[in-house]
């Protein structure tokens, strides 16, 4: 069975949030598939589409078009079918899709939502599962299930659609406090909010009750795993320690290549020399082995004693704001709320 057996839907516009789903939908007969496979949990996000695209391109500096959502080449044939898994990064892309489709004038009743739950987790994982879900994909489900769900696809209610659009507005807001409140409070129909903040909060620097500024959880993990010995990003990623495990869990939401990306940011950060970089064993196209890194005395000090200022660490855009930014000095309190310094 393919999509051609479901009248009116094989010619619809299908939106997929990872490459595997994009390929599977094409194999099933979909002719108009939009891949929107950008991981929005890291890097800048903007409400304005053009600005968003520019900011993302500058952030990743990638030559491939991973995100076709805003592409002028897309013909938005109705209905639009959105295929989304339980991965929290895909859920954020779902909000963005709702916002964009409304912007281009497609009514919510013409947007069919196919939400796929995560499969039950194995009883025998080699490593413990994190509390959040970032590895689920639509293709975890067999073709039969995909087509059955497609045959009875329904749009969101107007209320739920409005909420999704509003969530994108809040996610891209320069002031993250309202978004964080939404995550804490929860919103009906969006179970991803609490685990999403569990992940995003790892990217913000912390402030202790005594007022000491701390590295973000992500950077604390990196600078704890790093040592005076040269290590490749692979060495850091597979480190046999609790920090290594926590980093791998977090990396399910960012990708492994972000480990190399962040280490590069640290090494290139001009205001101090917390991390040093040298040529690694492989060519630049092998990003996880192209360089080696080691921690300096300054890095040890930052890790152990904390930051003297937010500018001690390389900035990291998250949603509509930026971690370690002096212009947007948001820090994480011990109760997991963000406040301005």
């Amino acid at each position: 069975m393919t999509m051609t057996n479901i009248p009116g839907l094989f010619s619809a516009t299908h939106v997929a949030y990872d490459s595997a789903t994009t390929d599977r939908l094409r194999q099933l007969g979909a002719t108009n598939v939009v891949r929107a496979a950008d991981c929005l949990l890291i890097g800048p996000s903007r409400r304005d589409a053009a600005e968003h695209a520019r900011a993302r391109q500058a952030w990743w500096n990638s030559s491939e078009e991973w995100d076709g959502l805003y592409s002028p080449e897309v013909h938005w044939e109705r209905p639009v079918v959105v295929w989304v898994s339980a991965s929290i990064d895909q859920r954020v892309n779902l909000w963005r899709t709702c916002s964009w489709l409304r912007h281009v004038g497609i009514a919510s009743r013409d947007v069919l939502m196919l939400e796929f739950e995560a499969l039950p987790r194995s009883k025998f994982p080699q490593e413990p599962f994190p509390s959040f879900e970032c590895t689920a994909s639509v293709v975890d489900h067999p073709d039969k299930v995909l087509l059955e769900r497609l045959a009875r696809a329904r749009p969101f209610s107007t209320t739920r659609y409005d909420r999704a659009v509003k969530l994108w507005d809040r996610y891209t807001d320069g002031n993250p406090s309202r978004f964080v409140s939404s995550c804490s409070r929860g919103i009906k129909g969006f179970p991803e909010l609490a685990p999403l903040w569990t992940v995003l909060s790892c990217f913000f620097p912390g402030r202790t009750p005594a007022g000491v500024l701390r590295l973000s959880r992500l950077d604390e993990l990196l600078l704890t795993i790093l040592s005076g010995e040269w290590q490749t990003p692979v060495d850091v990623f597979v480190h046999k320690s609790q920090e290594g495990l926590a980093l791998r869990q977090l990396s399910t939401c960012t990708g492994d290549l972000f480990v190399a990306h962040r280490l590069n940011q640290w090494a290139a950060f001009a205001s101090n020399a917390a991390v040093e970089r040298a040529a690694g064993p492989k060519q630049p196209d092998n990003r996880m082995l192209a360089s080696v890194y080691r921690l300096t005395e300054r890095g040890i000090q930052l890790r152990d004693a904390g930051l003297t200022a937010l500018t001690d660490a390389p900035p990291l855009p998250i949603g509509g704001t930026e971690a370690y930014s002096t212009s947007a000095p948001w820090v994480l309190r011990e109760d997991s709320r963000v406040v301005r310094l």
Partner: protein
Amino acid sequence: MKSYLWIAAAVILPSFAACNRTVGECWPVGEGDKNGGVGSGPVIASGGTGDNGDSPPNPNDFKIPEADCNIAEQSPCTEKCLASYETAATTCGKVQDDAQRKSCQEGAYAGYKTCRESCKKASKPCADMYVACTDMGMPCTREIDLGYSLCTYCRDDCAANRPYKYGECYKCGFE
């Protein structure tokens, strides 16, 4: 390889999951208080309550190895061993001659134990396989989705003990 193990696991799981646990012994459901009959399930000798079946098999004693009642100890690899053992034990159970049946069952169980030992040795950490994958370079290290290499997708599936989304994982150092 891994998908084969999953198929084997899927075959054995219903009988395995239906394992009744009593003090020191466990039985396939429906066989606990009666002779399950030849070929009705895994056949293993019990040298006494709570052992792991190390003593010679007794054809009247049909039960799953003690260790296999503890789900936490299982892996796809050991499940494959159990599946193979179940098949072999079923065949042995059809042997009419007592001595030959006993010998057959001993052989089946010896094979099962060897298989489990092999699993222990073969349980290579997914992180090690990720290292091997990354060391291979392209196409194993290619970016599948923005920020995600093929190697990390393979590692995620490996660590979660689920089938690989990408068959190429087998060519890129994953088992």
